[in-house]
């Protein structure tokens, strides 16, 4: 592939050679592909990118996207144009836990801005930044469909709803104690109402 540039990230051939789905992840990917008619495997792209993001450190590097393209037998640019369109794919490295605080109408009406400020102060980062220890990235998100249980934040597959400051404290403490990478594909999601 040479040293072409995907967005802001440089392509690294050595890194690309190291990227390979675990057997378990590959089984999931094969199941996803089997849901579409023959020759329509490109349809699997969005779900497979979620698996790849969870598998390879919580973000999609140019090498990861190249690998996904090779699995689905499509061009790398077809992967990049999709990955760069949808908000759930990270094209830059992020913390182990990405906290996404919903900020649209009903959440705003119920104090989402105060929740964001509280987390900013507590973690000593601004929206869009990652803590020095690489544990948390703070983001704001547009309506996550939790308007009746506002304010809320999403972390990986988990919805944390009806937030209060005490609740945020507990959530952050728990994630820090676990120290795990949190992904949308997690099976051990927790929903706290």
């Amino acid at each position: 592939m040479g040293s072409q540039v995907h967005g802001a990230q440089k392509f690294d051939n050595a890194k690309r050679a190291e990227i390979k789905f675990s057997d378990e992840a590959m089984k999931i990917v094969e199941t996803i592909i089997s849901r579409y008619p023959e020759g329509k495997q490109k349809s699997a792209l969005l779900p497979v990118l979620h698996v790849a993001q969870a598998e390879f450190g919580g973000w999609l590097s140019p090498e990861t996207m190249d690998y996904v393209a090779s699995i689905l037998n499509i061009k790398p640019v077809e992967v990049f144009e999709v990955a760069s369109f949808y908000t759930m794919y990270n094209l830059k490295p992020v913390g182990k836990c990405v906290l996404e605080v919903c900020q649209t109408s009903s959440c705003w009406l119920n104090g989402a801005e105060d929740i964001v400020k509280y987390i900013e102060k507590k973690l000593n980062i601004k929206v869009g930044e990652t803590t020095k220890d690489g544990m948390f990235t703070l983001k704001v998100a547009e309506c996550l469909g939790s308007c009746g249980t506002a304010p809320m934040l999403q972390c990986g597959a988990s919805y944390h709803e009806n937030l209060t400051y005490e609740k945020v404290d507990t959530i952050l403490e728990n994630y820090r104690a676990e120290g795990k990478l949190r992904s949308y594909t997690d099976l051990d999601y927790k929903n706290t109402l």
Partner: protein
Amino acid sequence: MGRKLLIHNDHIPNIHTLDVYRAHGGYASVEKALKIMQPDQVTEEVKKSGLRGRGGAGFPTGMKWSFLAKPEGVPRYLVCNADESEPGTFKDRYLMEKIPHALIEGMITSSFALGAKQSYIYIRGEYFYVARILEAAIAEAYAAGWLGKNILGTDFSHDCSVQVGGGAYICGEETALLESLEGKRGNPRIKPPFPAVAGLWGCPTVVNNVETIAAVVPIVNMGGEEYAKIGVGKSTGTKLISASGHINKPGVYEIELGITVEEFIYGEEYCGGIRNGKKLKAVVAGGSSVPILPTELILKTAKGEPRLMTYESLSDGGFQTGTMLGSGGFIAMDEDTSIVKNLFTFSRFYHHESCGQCSPCREGTGWIEKILKKFLDGTANESDVDLLWDIQSKIEGKTICPLGEAAAWPVAAAIRHFKHEFLEIARNKKFTDISHYDRLNKLARV
């Protein structure tokens, strides 16, 4: 107490499992349709029911189904739109999370009517955990023979699977959804051709909202005519309403179409009134894209008649004095709410979610957000109100998909009914947000 047809069993423990769902009458519509009905008869019942699309547009479902092209040898698809992303709307999530089999049953019965051997449930990526719940339910349905080959010993076979999206409001637009389902960016397609002729992979496709498909179950069970007896006029049946904002009891309510807006807001059975004894200031009745209305116009029409929760009554008076039922995303705001700031959260949303294909929407949504930010910063001029009006009027009707209208309408309505709030900020060169963050208030003030 109104009749409930969709979430009447939501309180039953383990209703998400096949056994419990079955014990409460689940999958009866599949039995009835496959054993004693012809596919066209099912479509006929849906037509008779008067069911209208529950995603927001309110298009008659039976008519949409009858448009489906049926060329020989070409597969047809049913795609469920579970990309619920309209701010204020969370009913589909509730239905899928609590009673996943209600959707799957509806998918099978509807697919039988349409002659679809394969269906997909396209669910927004953020609802990943809900997709897990659906996948578990689908696995149960396969194991019990409700999905797969020769269902109930008939020659009808059907496969159903879930696809998660990647986070994009635009994919709730049906052609953008199909693009996304094909593994592409969610750019809406130019219509015609409509999906009924050329949809998923170019094949005839019906795209229906979660609630619409779930409503096919009671329609087949009770018959279209019986279903149509519920409601008022062309607003038949029941509707899930997502209620949020400054109300005492936010949540998902199934209402019979035709109850008054006043009963919905103040009735103990529903929202239970406005929190903390505050007064109601305004309501967004059908999701962020429908026009906001001040209290006096949401409770009564311009003619002074009580406003009803129906497609017709809510839109009575057109956009001058009315609004739309939309997706049923009902957001109530108390007297302390800044309409300008609420609009800002909507406009920021639409700017973020514009797919970027059409210049009026791509550029216009950004300009609107920037100008509204000037109001919040206290640097806006009075002429900026006219500028906002001008921009929104130049987006509407000039884009491939309705996201343009969805972005324009809330701006127009906020100015139409609350122009004084914009002017006051512009004159004072100051914006003070006194909106009432009631859940956090105690802590925020310490």
